């Protein structure tokens, strides 16, 4: 059992809209740890595995996202989520290709 905390700047052009929210939630669900997300350091913290709550944050571009996790895979969980956000939700390349 461990705890982990990470912050990451979201550069995605449209922000935390539907598709990124689904990706983020699906990734979070793959970990056994309890994972929470916030758009500000002081919270409020929401369940990162809840698609409805993640989408409801309506976080815009340039938001600093905070992830914290508690559980056996806490460190791996927050790192994977931060990587997803930092990679622009793996969408940048495809969007660029689309022109």
């Amino acid at each position, binding site marked *: 059992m461990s705890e982990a905390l990470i912050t990451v700047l979201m550069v995605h052009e449209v922000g935390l809209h539907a598709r990124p929210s*689904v990706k983020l*939630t699906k990734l979070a669900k793959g970990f056994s740890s309890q994972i929470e997300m916030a758009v500000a350091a002081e919270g409020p913290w929401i369940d990162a*595995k809840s698609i*409805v709550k993640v989408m409801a944050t309506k976080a815009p571009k340039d938001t600093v996202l905070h992830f914290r996790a508690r559980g056996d895979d806490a460190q791996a969980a927050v790192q994977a989520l931060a990587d997803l956000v930092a990679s622009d939700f793996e969408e940048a390349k495809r969007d660029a290709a689309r022109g």
Partner: protein
Amino acid sequence: MSSRVGIVIVSHSPDVARGTAEMVRQMVGEEVPLAHCGGNPDGGLGTSVEKILAAIDEAWSEAGVAILVDLGGAETNSEMAIEMQPPERQGRVVICNAPIVEGAVMAATESWGGATLAQVCGAAEELSAA
């Protein structure tokens, strides 16, 4: 093996049903059992119990099936289709009280993560409360 909850989309419009299913496929993926139906037997706007029954069969999963509907007739015809299910399926096919498009995406995301039928519908219905 698919123990994921199946999702059925029932709209008066075949185009809305197809488009909603397409959004679920693109955003959530291929792993969730999914079926859609719309339009009356004559090809006009409406819903039909036969089509809903076929869609339930197509999306059937041992974990159950969640139905997303649009307007009144879609709901009453879906209720009829649920009543016509065999005894072993009773209680495992339910209508989610949620907006059809958003609800389908939310429900499918929960299903993908291995949630129970109650959790799948709960996530979709959380939309209305939010």
